[in-house]
């Protein structure tokens, strides 16, 4: 298979404009004859549904939650980047583009990233007009802050709830179209398969989560905005329901899956407190501006932090990275935390945590300043752990946060299946091997509001769409497939719960395909996963039946897909014999322990083709060309 990125050439500043002009248009009277299915209602899916409906298309939008407003975009805290240069501090579209390509460790497509930076300014305008209450200065102008180590202030924010406010903006735009009759909303409805007819995506099979009814929905194009797959690790900052089922089942129908091993770890999360732990809570990275990270010098030192004298503490980030200290990027901070815990110097009951200490900052600035800066985070920490961070050092540990990999898409955001579009975190497009802070919201909304609504018209205008009867063999086949999976899960009647399998898979992935990876470890995981998967299908216990609200059955289907995806992630990680961004292979590091990229061999996106469960996936490479930003090695010493 030849991957054609369709990325335009020529001067990068005009690529998107020229490309848009070359796209065919659907005449307004014909738009209402087309139906588009959108799966997912987060920033990407919600904004796409609303915008497509505004243009005149008929939209059917699906989400598994009880309302489109619950999508996990809502939990994003920090902010959204835009190259507005409102502060006259040297920001520009080119600089945002440059930072994003470099931050992605030179593993993304330049054309896409430039477009993202261009569109970022329109997103802010659109959201302000919708009533998103971005923070303001006293003058009434929009406020910005610098975020995630950026040297310019380009992050727009709405307190610590930027994701919530942006999502509510998209949700309200969506509901406006529901009221106008242009969007038909299907909440509590989960996509379980993709219908492909004559090589084109023509619909989906869904399960109504209340009645259990399996149904097919047909359309002229299908858009997936179903988010990332971080929940494969069981413990992550994702919502409990976040899953890979929609993209995975589309992958099994022929869509290539790109860079599955690129996962992002967030260094400042509240550590695991026990076996029952169900998810991890993130605390804003801004804490590292004033907190000092340390562990005891001695292994197994059980004394409370305040009892450990200064000369028996190891401020390991300050020691190893004297110029950046506690502010090193996410991946570096995370890996170092793991390293000291592996040495047996981790703290807390589990030994899987490091201290983030505000003692010195409180002495220097006073308690009131710290309260002003971090009060809400300190309250959240206390609510969850029962410890007061003003009095004792916080305990933190890294957690899985975002997945840069996803379905492969071209410049039009179309996957390798014609008519199947993938937007937001579900695709692989813009972040390369590592995503910068405050860029996820930007990409979701750029795809949904501005890119997809333009590019999808070209496909609809250049193809003919015959009406498909619901009795079509491809429809029947997909429905049967879905029914069989559910029946098999219910009839296994084994002895172990779905969660117990999910936990075990998550632990395996975290240990061998998590923060740092080795060929040996990945091979071990690859030998364990199939056995565990077989055990799952033999011993899983799903009670109840399929014709009712059955949360265990929902979970079981998602975990079954995670088992297959897990294998692909390990394979991809094993194939990539270099360290880049979120992918760190211990064999490939510089003399002083930093990630060593190998541009001469691995400057490509790895797009995998499915060849059946248990069979090796086939690798297709999309070479990456850097005409504007020339690859360099990152250094934080």
């Amino acid at each position, binding site marked *: 298979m030849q991957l054609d990125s369709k990325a335009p050439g020529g001067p990068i500043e005009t690529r998107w404009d020229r490309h848009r002009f070359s796209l065919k248009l659907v005449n307004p009277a014909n738009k209402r004859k087309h139906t588009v299915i959108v799966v997912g209602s987060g920033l990407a899916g919600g904004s796409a549904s609303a915008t497509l409906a505004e243009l005149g298309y008929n939209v059917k939008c699906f989400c598994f939650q009880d309302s489109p407003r*619950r999508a996990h975009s*809502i939990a994003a805290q920090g902010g959204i980047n835009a190259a507005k240069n409102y502060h006259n501090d040297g920001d520009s579209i080119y600089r945002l583009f440059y930072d994003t390509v470099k931050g992605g460790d030179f593993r993304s497509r330049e054309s896409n990233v430039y477009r993202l930076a261009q569109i970022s300014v329109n997103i802010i*305008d659109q959201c302000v*007009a919708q009533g998103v209450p971005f923070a*303001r200065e006293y003058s009434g102008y929009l406020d910005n802050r610098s975020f995630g180590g950026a040297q310019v202030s380009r992050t727009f924010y*709405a307190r610590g709830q930027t994701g919530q406010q942006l999502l509510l903006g998209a949700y309200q735009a969506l509901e406006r179209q529901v009221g106008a009759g242009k969007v038909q909303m299907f909440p509590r409805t989960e996509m379980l398969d993709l219908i492909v007819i004559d090589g084109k995506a023509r619909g989906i099979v869904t399960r109504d989560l209340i009645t259990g009814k399996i149904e097919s929905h047909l359309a002229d194009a299908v858009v997936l905005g179903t988010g990332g797959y971080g929940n494969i690790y069981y413990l992550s900052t994702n919502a409990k329901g976040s899953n890979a089922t929609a993209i995975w089942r589309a992958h099994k129908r022929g869509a290539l899956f790109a860079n599955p091993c690129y996962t992002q770890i967030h260094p400042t999360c509240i550590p695991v407190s026990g076996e*029952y732990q169900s998810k991890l809570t993130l605390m804003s990275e801004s804490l590292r501006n004033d907190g000092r990270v340390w562990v005891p010098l001695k292994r197994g030192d059980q004394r409370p932090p305040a009892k450990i004298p200064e000369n028996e503490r190891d401020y390991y980030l300050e020691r190893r990275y004297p110029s950046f200290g506690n502010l090193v990027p996410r991946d570096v901070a995370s890996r170092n935390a793991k390293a000291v815990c592996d040495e047996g110097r981790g703290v807390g009951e589990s030994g899987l945590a490091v201290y983030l200490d505000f003692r010195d900052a409180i002495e220097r600035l006073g308690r009131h300043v710290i309260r002003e800066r971090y009060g809400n985070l300190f309250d959240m920490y206390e609510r*969850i*752990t*029962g410890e007061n961070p003003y009095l004792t050092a916080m305990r933190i540990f890294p957690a899985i946060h975002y997945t840069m990999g996803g379905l492969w898409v071209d410049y039009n955001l179309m996957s390798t299946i014609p008519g199947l579009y993938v937007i937001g975190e579900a695709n692989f497009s813009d972040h390369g091997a590592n995503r910068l802070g405050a860029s996820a919201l930007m990409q979701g909304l750029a795809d949904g509001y501005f890119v997809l609504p333009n590019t999808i018209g070209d496909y609809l205008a250049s193809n003919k769409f015959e009406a498909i009867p619901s009795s079509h063999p491809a429809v029947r086949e997909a429905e049967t497939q879905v029914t069989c999976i559910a029946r098999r899960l219910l009839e296994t009647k084994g002895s172990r719960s779905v969660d117990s399998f999910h936990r075990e898979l998550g632990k395996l992935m975290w240990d061998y395909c998590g923060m740092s990876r080795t060929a040996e470890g990945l091979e071990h995981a690859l030998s364990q996963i199939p056995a565990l998967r077989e055990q799952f299908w033999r011993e899983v216990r799903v009670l109840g039946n399929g014709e009712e609200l059955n949360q265990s059955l929902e979970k079981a289907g998602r975990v079954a897909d995670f088992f297959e995806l897990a294998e692909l992630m390990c394979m991809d990680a094993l194939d990539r014999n270099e360290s880049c961004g979120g992918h760190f292979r211990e064999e490939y590091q510089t003399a002083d322990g930093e990630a060593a990229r190998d541009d001469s061999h691995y400057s490509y996106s790895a797009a995998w083709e499915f060849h059946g469960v248990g069979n090796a996936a086939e690798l297709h490479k999309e070479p990456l060309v850097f005409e504007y930003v020339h690859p360099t090695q990152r250094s934080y010493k």
Partner: protein
Amino acid sequence: MRLTLHIWRQRNAQEKGRMVRYEVPNVNQDMSFLEMLDVLNEDLIAKGEEPVAFDHDCREGICGMCGFMINGVAHGPLRGTTVCQLHMRHFRDGQELYLEPWRARAFPVMRDLVVNRSAFDRLIAAGGFISVSTGSAPDGNAILVPKENCDRAMDAAACIGCGACVAMCPNASASLFMGAKISHLGLLPQGRPERDKRVVAMVSQSIAEKFGSCTNIGECEAVCPKEIRLEVIARMNRDFLRATWTGRGVSRDEAEQVSNNSLAESRR
């Protein structure tokens, strides 16, 4: 610690439900309330009994998916907290807890602790938005918003749509929810042009959905996990009176009808 739970079990919207007693012997005080229910469910599955269905998703108190009554209080005893962020250290050994779903005519029970809140979506679809299509926005800084208005709008916009306000209200009124949206949008210059139409449309939709009227009891404010204040209801009422008395944004006939319906509903 050890807890005794009485949980509402109901197979589906049609069948009758009942309270069932469960013992949870090994509750760790660092668990969240939902993690405690996870543990109970794992035990039930091991025994071959169907687990308790409850809604939840982000478990960070922001998605608004979770929520049920604990001993008659929406989201339980801790102020400004959803059940997913409520930890077991706020309970004591041997305590008996009664868990029930939200109770309101507009929120039918679907199973156990799961209710259908899609009436909230229909309230927003009726008018809880600003009509601006993608692409037609002016530059973000072309619309100045006084910081204080923006902060107040944000206070109201913090609503997570969980439905605790309706569940706790003796009238099952959605006034806090609607008032929050009407205040959020009405406090911003972008939201002013549609202010009259919005309030009339949302209030008439709430009557159609069988939400009750507000009689200023304040239970909603007391249980709101985002601590949204009653002030938003006052703002909604003022907008509603202004719109219906002056006939702005709606025809006079329509306004009169909504007004009458709303009066009739509150007397009922």
